[in-house]
């Protein structure tokens, strides 16, 4: 008699152990790599985690027997170490399942065979129908789609309203400035004159008339374009370099340095030396990105009242052009999620990305980091004043061309800019240097005109 209930207990115990096993889920680890490098962009990673939770709930409902666990990192160090890590990871087969990078990487990595084309997978998920149509152009290369747009932005020229007032501008003139830039009424020459004026009248210190980024980046393409330069010929699919435009651009830079408007060592790799004077209200004009607004607000202007100070003191507009009547310009560099060839969970990966590409997560990232949303329906959710005010810049925006050798093009142009600003070469010499460098590294894929 006694033994019977012992047996019963044992059977129950065995059942208790076995039954949960029967309904146990297979856990798939999804490796996700994301990068800012600006801190506020952390949602590029966190949104995927949130999406995974939602997807897991859905998977449970479907009884799929699979659960996703997201692992990975959000990189705040810099693009060059991130890209190096990615390159090495692709090689070693230890690649992530989802990797986020700027859209030009789709061209390079697609050409190198590191990522997969997504055309066949996209129609399966209705979330992707909501993506702003023009953004797909940024991730297309050789006719196929290689990434899912994650966010976009714009790169304005910012100006300090308080300093303009000290220079003698009226509030009306200040309010009209963005309009004048957009119409082509306030050109780069006018920027130069105003900044020089400010330096001479001691409204700003020498070198603080105009600031731009201290590190390499795609922005230089935008400024070269604003001086009339071409960079891509769609018909032949080749890159282009317009010497005349580059000369204009380099001459502007040279003059700016000579007249004390621009620092000789502006390209000093030190972000604090960009942000600190800006947040101290000491810089008249500075080129940047919409996300700088969030960085400034959150990290540098905490003590001064965050975005109240910004709205009171800083204005923004698309970049001016070089000739009167020309069209203002800005650039957007959408970020994209891509799927490496080496990933073993491609179907789950695209599904996870679909769950990340939803309006509320889109809005969360946009508002959190002052990037711009990628989905048409997100606009309803975004109440952020800055994003609302800055979104008109998208009407003037351009993308970088889809070419596998774009990196060499950027590298050569950057060398020219560094040489001119630091005084190592005259503008004419720098143009020749850039052309020679492009010829050497891109060979027949570039047209020098």
């Amino acid at each position, binding site marked *: 008699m006694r033994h019977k209930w012992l047996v019963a207990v044992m059977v129950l115990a065995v059942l208790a152990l076995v039954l949960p096993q029967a309904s146990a889920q297979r856990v798939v680890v999804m490796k996700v790599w994301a990068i800012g490098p600006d801190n506020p962009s952390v949602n590029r990673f966190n949104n995927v985690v949130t999406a995974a939770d939602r997807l897991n709930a859905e998977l449970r409902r479907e009884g799929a027997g699979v659960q996703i666990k997201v692992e990975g990192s959000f990189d705040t160090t810099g693009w060059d170490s991130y890209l190096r890590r990615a390159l090495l990871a692709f090689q070693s087969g230890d690649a992530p399942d989802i990797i986020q990078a700027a859209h030009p990487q789709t061209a*390079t990595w697609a050409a190198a065979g590191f990522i997969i084309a997504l055309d066949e997978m996209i129609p399966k998920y209705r979330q992707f129908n909501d993506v702003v149509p023009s953004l797909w152009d940024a991730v297309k290369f050789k006719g196929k789609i290689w990434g899912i747009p994650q966010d976009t932005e714009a790169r304005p020229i910012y100006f300090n309203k308080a300093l303009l007032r000290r220079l003698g501008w009226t509030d009306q003139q200040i309010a009209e400035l963005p309009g004048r830039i957009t119409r082509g009424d306030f050109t780069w020459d006018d920027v130069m004159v105003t900044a020089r004026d400010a330096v001479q009248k001691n409204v700003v210190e020498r070198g603080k008339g105009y600031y731009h980024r201290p590190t390499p980046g795609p922005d230089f393409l935008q400024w070269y374009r604003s001086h009339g330069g071409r960079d891509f010929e769609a018909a032949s699919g080749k890159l282009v370099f317009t010497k005349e435009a580059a000369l204009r651009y380099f001459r502007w830079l040279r003059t700016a340095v000579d007249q004390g408007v621009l620092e000789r060592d502006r390209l000093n790799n030190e972000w604090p030396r960009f942000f600190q004077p800006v947040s101290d209200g000491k810089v008249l004009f500075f080129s940047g990105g919409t996300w700088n607004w969030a960085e400034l607000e959150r990290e540098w202007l905490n003590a001064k009242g965050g975005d109240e100070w910004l709205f009171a003191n800083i204005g923004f507009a698309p970049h001016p052009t070089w000739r009167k009547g020309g069209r203002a310009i800005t650039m957007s560099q959408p970020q994209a999620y891509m799927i490496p060839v080496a990933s073993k969970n491609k179907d789950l990966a695209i599904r996870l990305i679909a769950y990340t590409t939803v309006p509320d997560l889109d809005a969360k990232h946009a508002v959190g980091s002052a990037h711009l949303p990628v989905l048409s329906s997100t606009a309803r959710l975004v109440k952020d004043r800055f994003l609302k005010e800055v979104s008109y810049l998208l009407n003037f925006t351009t993308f970088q061309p889809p070419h596998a050798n774009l990196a060499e093009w950027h590298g050569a142009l950057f060398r020219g800019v560094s040489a001119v600003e630091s005084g190592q070469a005259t503008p004419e010499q720098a143009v020749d240097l850039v052309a020679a460098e492009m010829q050497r590294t891109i060979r027949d894929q570039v047209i020098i005109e």
Partner: protein
Amino acid sequence: MQSQAEATPVRAGPVVRAALLQRYAAPAIFLLPATVLIVLFFLVPVFTTLYLSMTDISVLTFRNPQWAGLENYRTLLQDPFLGKIMLNTARYVGFTLLFNVGMGLVLALLSTSVPERYGNQMRAVWLLPRILPPVVYVLIWQGLSRDAPFGLISSLTGSERSFISGHPWAAIVLANGMVGASFGLLIFTSAIRSISQDLFYAAAVDGATTLQTIRRIVLPMLKWPILFVTAYQTLSLLTSFEYILLLTQGGPGFFTTTVWSLHAYNLALSNYFGNVQFGLGAAMAAVLVVIGIIVSVLYLRIFNFRALVAEPKIEVN
């Protein structure tokens, strides 16, 4: 009768084979791990560097590098900025060497001219930059060099700007120099200590001043050590870039402090836009490798290889 010498030659029987095995087994076992590692991480890389330098390997061609012959070297020679990089390298090596040897000498002379316990203490202090992790050392440099009011150097010199971006060369030479000086310091101190005491007493009896003693007795004895330190550190400076990478990344601005080895590293392994040019970087590294081999062999010739290779005391195997 046939002498044994004319008998048929003895074939290597099992006994002889065992003896041979015994003769070579011991060295083989002892040397195996070291040999494997040295082959894998010294010898193979030397040839790999030369091989890679002759391919067009880059991000795009990583999977299928093509043979490019001497193309990379030709590209290097045509690079307009190569001259600047070579100049930077010469500057870096020259000035740092001057500091290393000069300061090492001065410190050695000073620290042997004071009571031993003080001398030891000061020498120990100069050992610190060498044993401290490079990243911490650079952190200290960056901290001292900050813009006013935070940086000590700015407060002392009255300048507003960061010492490192204002005077990158001074920063690099000093930072590397303070690490390198300890090398010379210790060698020279050893050499000074090994000078026979009689010479000093004799000089004192003759009424020589300290300066004269140094000039007539100490310095001549330091000729070889100075030559050795100079030669050794020239090679090591030619190829070192770690501190430069950490301090200035080769900037600020346009290749300001980029030296040959750093440029090679950047070309091959790190680039903002993602266009790593592996083959080109390997070509630059190959130049260093070849120089390194030639110079290292030269050192051996000059600095007494023979004495070090004396046959072992125990011959029995």
